[in-house]
């Protein structure tokens, strides 16, 4: 029982990070049909911006702010202007392939210009143990969970309760009508890219103390985020959250109760099963698909 509680809590913490990344992923898809295969690398990169800032002698919190600002600039504005805008007119698939090339480029840049070794990364959450029903839970897990949930709630409020958020939804659902109604669709799309960049920076701060900063660390995260997004339902935020949490917990349970060798296989099998039997995702509503 104690082990189970432990596994579920730490699984939820990892899952919450997956959810953050998956939400950004689905936002990009909804507003600009961008399947970002570099999403994992987008999580890996901000940690290196922050480390670089710390290396030149800045305090850690300034590093976080600077790293986030750089991500907003490069992974938000830069990504949209340089990669997405010119590629989008060619269609979804060429753009998806371009992001694959981008992911390779980001990985190689970090390896070449920073380091190929895994770097330790300080945690913003003080490390201690909590005791609950005989289980020992680290404050890390709880902290990550709380921060991630707060971020998701804030995003949900932004999207549903503010005028800008409503405009963003309108721009995503029907750009033409939104444009007729006077909504600056282009600016709304830019906002989603900025939100995505913010989400990946947050995910980076939360996940890197656990997995260390390494140029390859985006690979597993990116895959997990795709799976979370698809399992939950590609076209909505709620789905990404459920998908992320489910994936985190299933992954943890599989590692303990099924087989450590095949732990990576369980989410993949889940993914294939969902795509085959419920392509719209567990929570998703059927989406018009181009044939």
């Amino acid at each position: 029982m104690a082990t189970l509680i432990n596994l579920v809590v730490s699984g939820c913490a990892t899952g919450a990070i997956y959810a953050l990344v998956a939400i950004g992923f689905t936002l990009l898809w909804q507003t600009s049909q961008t399947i970002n295969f570099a999403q994992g690398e987008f999580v890996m990169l901000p940690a290196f911006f922050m480390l670089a800032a710390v290396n030149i002698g800045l305090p850690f919190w300034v590093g976080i702010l600077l790293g986030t600002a750089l991500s907003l600039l490069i992974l938000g504005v830069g990504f949209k202007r340089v990669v997405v805008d010119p590629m989008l007119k060619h269609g979804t698939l060429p753009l998806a392939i371009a992001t694959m090339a981008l992911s390779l480029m980001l990985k190689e840049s970090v390896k070449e210009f920073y380091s190929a070794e895994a770097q330790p990364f300080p945690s913003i959450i003080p490390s201690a143990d909590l005791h609950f029903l005989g289980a020992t839970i680290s404050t890390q897990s709880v902290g990550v969970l709380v921060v991630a949930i707060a971020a998701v709630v804030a995003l949900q409020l932004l999207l549903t309760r503010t005028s800008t958020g409503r405009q963003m939804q309108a721009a995503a659902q029907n750009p033409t009508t939104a444009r007729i109604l006077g909504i600056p669709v282009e600016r709304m799309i830019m906002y989603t890219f900025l939100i995505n960049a913010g989400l990946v920076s947050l995910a980076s701060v939360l996940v890197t103390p656990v997995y260390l900063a390494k140029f390859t660390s985006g690979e597993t995260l990116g895959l997990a985020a795709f799976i979370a997004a698809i399992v939950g339902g590609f076209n909505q935020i709620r789905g990404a959250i459920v998908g992320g949490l489910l994936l985190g917990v299933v992954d943890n349970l599989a590692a303990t109760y099924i087989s450590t060798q095949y732990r990576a296989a369980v989410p993949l099998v889940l993914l294939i099963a969902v795509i085959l039997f419920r392509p719209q995702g567990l929570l998703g509503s059927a989406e018009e698909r181009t044939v």
Partner: protein
Amino acid sequence: MTLPRLLALGGLAIAAVLLLIVPFALGRYGLYILSLWSVMTIAAIGLNLTLGYAGQVSLAQGAFVGIGAYAGAILTTNGWPMIVALLVAVALCFVVGWLLGYPALRVQHHYLAFVTLAFSTLAYLLFRNEEWLTKGIYGISDVPRPVLLGLKTDSPLRFYFLCLAVLAIVAFMVWWLIRSPWGRAFVALRENPIRALSLGVDTRRYTLMAFAIGSALGGVSGVLYAPLVEFIDPTPFTLGLSLNLLLMVIVGGQGFFAGPFLGAAIAVLLPEWLRFTEGLYLLLYAAFVLGLLVISPSGLLGILDKYLTSRSTRAASAARAAATATATLGDPT
């Protein structure tokens, strides 16, 4: 003779000279690179059939190269001749590819990319974990070079010619296939599946076939890859290989017959030419692919094709203008 045909024949002639004569002047390493190019081209031709002609995205071609390589390595180290290994690998990849085609009947585009991506990672896990069969991370060493018709191919030059011969056979078969009604059906599947279906093309069967044949060629490539490197372990067959093969097809030009040849040449030879940049070559390659995609999503041959088309349109409109002008001049009123 039209210009495109002239270009194609000229390219073929130059390629033939390069591939048949230059190897005699190359050392061991040069021959290894050329052989690797032939092997990768075979896999890329298969993927081009699935992706370029039939329009089905696959991120699993690397896994089929892996299946082929393991089938080849396991059988030949146990004393079976390579031809048997080849038949087994082709049959195995054909069946697995056929099964992988089933998701393609239900989902398209990016969803299909994810299914095949998952398959690719699962295959890697199998190679790594099923030690009784694949020897896991320790790998299978001393994969023998085959003996064909009493001729040993253990010298690099002979083995290279074997790879080249297999590539030529595969290329000819695919060339013949895409000119057959099957090839036309594949293209119809890519361009407009609903219209293809309404015209009586069995889209279901052709989708599965596109996957199965493309995957079988991945298997052929793997059977040659194993004796080429003489050691097989799971590391080459990660998702990276599938991605790399996909980029080869895209860079060369998907849906063009010569695309995989060109794409594989760039992916295999470029690192050698960019050796002086040390670790930077992958970065440069990725930047190059990204830039190329922005300019021309249909790859390098797409640029050539666009140029030739606009040239012939210009010529045609010039001819039309000339004809109108003469008609007007000739008009007595």
